[in-house]
C-alpha cells in the first residue's frame, strides 16, 4: 500500500504534461483561461490532436484504438488535463455511443462508426430523455416501427446537449409496445441528423445559454442496419452507457483544478479590507470541500482499481456521480461567495473579442453565478441524484 507514483508512472506523468504543454493550442488555452466557451470547431480540432497522439479512446479497449491505460495512468491523465485547463472532449461519441457500439454492435457497425468517433469526424448527440419521461426513462414514447428494411421513427427527445451541432444521434426508441415490462421492447438505434423529418428546437437554460435541445422525429426513416445489437435489448445497453457516463461525471480532477485556482484567486482578491484568503470562515468552507474532494479522489481510484480495464463500472459509480456533483456545486457556491457583489452583473459577452463596452468585475466573479446557475443541472442530468440513490439502495445495499 503506497500513495506515491512509481518511476514508470512518473515518466508517464512527464509525458502527459509535455503533451499538454506543447500540443494544446495556444488560442484555445487563451479562450479557456478567460472562461469562454470553445467553438465546436475548436472541440473537433482538439480531439483530432488527441487522436493523432492515440489518446482519444482513453477508456476504450486497445483492439478498438483505446489506450489500454491502468487506472493510475487514467488518473494521471485526467489530472494533467485539468491542470492544463484543457477542455473535456465532447462525451457523446467517445464515452457514450462508442462503448455501446464496441460492446454490442456488429462488425460492420464497429468498422463504420468507431474510427470516425475516435477521429471526431462525426459529432454525436444523445436521445434518451423525453418530455414527460424525466428520470423515468423506461416510460419513453418515441416509436420506431419496422416497415420493410427501415424503421419509421416518431417522437420527441429532449435535454439533448449540443444537439444543434450534431451529425448523428443515438436513441432509445420503442420498437415493441406489446411487452410485459416497460423496460422491454426498447431498442438502441443510430439516426443521421440529416434524415428528412428530424428537427431541432433550442431550450434556453436559466443562465440564458443555448446548450440543450429538443429533437423531433416525424416519420424519420432509419435503415434497419442502424439498430445496435438485438431489437428490444436497448434498455440493457442504455444502462451500460449510463454507468460509463456516471463514472465520468464526478469530475474530480476538474474540481481539484477549480479549488486550486480559487485558492490563488482569493489571495489577491481586491474586495474587502484584506484579501479573502484572510477570511477564516471562507477558508474553512474551502478547506471542508477540499477534504471531501480528496476523499472522493481516492474513492474514485478505489473504484477504478476494482474494475478491470475496459469493463463497465457497477452501481458504485452512482456514489461517484452523487458526491462528485455535490462537490462541484459546492465549489460553484464558493466562487459566488468569493465574488460577493460582483457575482451579480450579467454581461455574458464581455470577454468576447468584439466586446466594446466597459468591463464589469473580474471574469471569475461575473461568471461565478452563471456557472452556479447552469451547474444546478449536474445533480439532475445523467440520472438525477435521487435516481442514483435509488440505484445504490437497491443494488448496493440490497434494500
Amino acid at each position, binding site marked *: 500500500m503506497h500513495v506515491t507514483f512509481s518511476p514508470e508512472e512518473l515518466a508517464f506523468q512527464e509525458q502527459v504534461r509535455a503533451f499538454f504543454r506543447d500540443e494544446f493550442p495556444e488560442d484555445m488555452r487563451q479562450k479557456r483561461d478567460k472562461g469562454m466557451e470553445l467553438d465546436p470547431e475548436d472541440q473537433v480540432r482538439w480531439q483530432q490532436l488527441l487522436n493523432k497522439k492515440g489518446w482519444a479512446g482513453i477508456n476504450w479497449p486497445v483492439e478498438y484504438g483505446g489506450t489500454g491505460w491502468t487506472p493510475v495512468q487514467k488518473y494521471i491523465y485526467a489530472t494533467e488535463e485539468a491542470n492544463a485547463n484543457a477542455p473535456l472532449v465532447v462525451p457523446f461519441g467517445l464515452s457514450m455511443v462508442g462503448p455501446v457500439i464496441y460492446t454490442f454492435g456488429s462488425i460492420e457497425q464497429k468498422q463504420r462508426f468507431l474510427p470516425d468517433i475516435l477521429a471526431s469526424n462525426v459529432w454525436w448527440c444523445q436521445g434518451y*430523455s423525453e418530455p414527460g419521461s424525466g428520470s423515468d426513462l423506461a416510460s419513453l414514447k418515441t416509436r420506431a416501427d419496422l416497415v420493410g428494411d427501415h424503421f419509421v421513427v416518431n417522437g420527441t427527445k429532449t435535454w439533448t446537449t449540443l444537439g444543434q451541432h450534431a451529425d448523428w444521434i443515438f436513441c432509445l426508441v420503442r420498437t415493441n409496445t406489446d411487452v410485459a415490462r416497460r423496460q422491454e421492447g426498447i431498442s438502441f438505434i443510430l439516426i443521421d441528423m440529416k434524415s428528412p423529418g428530424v428537427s431541432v428546437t433550442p431550450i*434556453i*437554460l436559466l443562465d440564458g445559454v443555448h446548450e440543450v435541445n429538443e429533437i423531433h422525429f416525424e416519420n424519420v426513416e432509419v435503415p434497419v442496419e442502424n439498430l445496435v445489437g438485438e431489437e428490444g435489448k436497448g434498455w440493457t445497453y442504455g444502462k451500460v452507457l449510463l454507468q460509463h457516463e456516471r463514472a465520468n461525471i464526478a469530475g474530480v480532477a476538474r474540481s481539484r483544478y477549480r479549488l486550486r485556482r480559487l485558492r490563488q484567486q482569493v489571495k489577491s482578491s481586491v474586495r474587502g479590507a484584506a484579501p479573502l484568503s484572510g477570511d477564516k470562515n471562507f477558508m474553512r468552507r474551502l478547506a471542508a470541500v477540499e477534504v471531501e474532494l480528496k476523499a472522493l479522489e481516492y474513492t474514485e481510484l478505489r473504484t477504478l482499481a476494482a474494475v478491470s480495464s475496459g469493463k463497465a463500472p457497477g452501481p458504485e459509480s452512482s456514489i461517484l456521480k452523487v458526491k462528485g456533483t455535490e462537490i462541484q*456545486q459546492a465549489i460553484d457556491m464558493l466562487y459566488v461567495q468569493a465574488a460577493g*457583489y460582483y457575482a451579480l452583473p450579467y454581461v455574458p459577452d464581455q470577454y468576447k473579442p468584439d466586446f466594446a463596452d466597459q468591463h*464589469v468585475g473580474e471574469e471569475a466573479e461575473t461568471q461565478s453565478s452563471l456557472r452556479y*446557475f447552469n451547474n*444546478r443541472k449536474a445533480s439532475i442530468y445523467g440520472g438525477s441524484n435521487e435516481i442514483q440513490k435509488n440505484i445504490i439502495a437497491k443494488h448496493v445495499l440490497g434494500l
Partner: protein
Amino acid sequence: MDFSLNEVQGMLADSIEKFIDNEYAFDTRQKYAASEAGFSADVWNTFAELGWTTVPFSEDDGGFNGDQIDVMVMMQRFGRGLLVEPYLANIVLAGGILKRVGSAAQKQQWLQAIMSGELQATLAFTEPQARYDIANIATTAAANGADWVLNGQKGLVFNGGTSDLIIVPARTSGKQDDDSGITLFAVPADTAGLSINAYHTVDGLRAADLTLSDVRVSGDAVLGGIDDGFAALDETVDDATLAICAEAVGILQVLKDKTVEFSKSRSQFGVPIGSFQALQHRMVDMLTVCEQAQSLLLWATMTVAEGGAEAKRAVSSIKYLVGTSGQTLGEEAVQLHGGMGVTWDLDVAHYFKRLTAISQLFGNADWHLDKLAA
C-alpha cells in the same frame, strides 16, 4: 405581542396581491425585465397613484407614515410577484436617506418627486473594493469654495442607469473604513464628470458602476452633516436588508408552493413524484424553512421598527437565515423540478436567481453570522 396585520396593512396587502394577480403575470414580468429601462414606467406610475411610493415616509413629508413593518408587508408580496420595479432603489434606499437627513428644501425638491414618481433615485451604497463594509469608502469629496468635488468609484448601484438622482456617500475625513468622516451627496445623474456604466444583473434587474472624475456639486447637495453620514447610511442599509429579506421570504413561499404543486402533477414511474417519501420529507423541510423564515422576519422587522437594543442582531439573524436555509430551499425547488427547473422558460428559475442575488446583497450569510458570533 401581536402578529396580525392591522386594518390598513391588510388593505395594503390585499391591493398588492390583487395587482399582482391581475396585472403582473410572469410573462409580463419578463417583458418588463427585458425592456430598455428594465422595469415598467406605467407600473411605477401606478405605484405612485396608489400611494405605495409614500409608505415609509412621515405625514409631515407627505407620506403614509408607515414603518418597516408596512414595507415588509409590501416587499414580501413584491417577492411573490417577482416585481422588477425599483422600489428598493427609490423608496427604501434613496428615500431612506432623504427622510432621515434631508433638509426641508431637499425633501421638497427630491423626496416629493420620488413619491410622485417623477424622479428616479438611488443610493451608491458600495464601492468595488469594499466587499460588505459600507463604511469602506475610498471615494473622496473635497471642499472647493462653496462646492464639493468628488472623485472615486461606486459599484452595483441599483437602477443606476435609469436614475435621475444618485446619492453618493463620500469620504470627507478619516481613514478608508472609518465610520466617521463620511458625507452624503445628492448628485444628479447628468452632472459633468459622472460616468455611469449600466448593466443587467443575473436576477433580471439592473445596476451600474459609477466613475466620478472631478464631479462638482454645490453645498446644497450635502445631505445631513459633514462627516456625519454614517448613521443614516447604516440605518438605511439595515432597512434595505430587512426589505430584501421580506422579498426573499415571499420568494421562498412561492418556491415551496410551486414545488409542492409540481410534485402533485408531475408523474414518474406511473405515480406523482409527490408520492415518493424521500421527496415528501424534503418538501417538509422546505415548509419548515418557510415557517421559520416567516417567523424570524416578523420578529426582526418588529424589533427594528420598535427600535429595540436587539435591532442589529435582528437584521443579521434574518439575513443569515435567508442566505443559508433559504438558499438551500431555492436549490431544492430547482432540484425537485428536475430538468424543467433549470430552464429559462419556467418562473422557478427566475425566483431562484433573485433569491441567490439577495443572498449576496448587504452582507452574505457568513458576514452576518460573524456579527452574531461577536
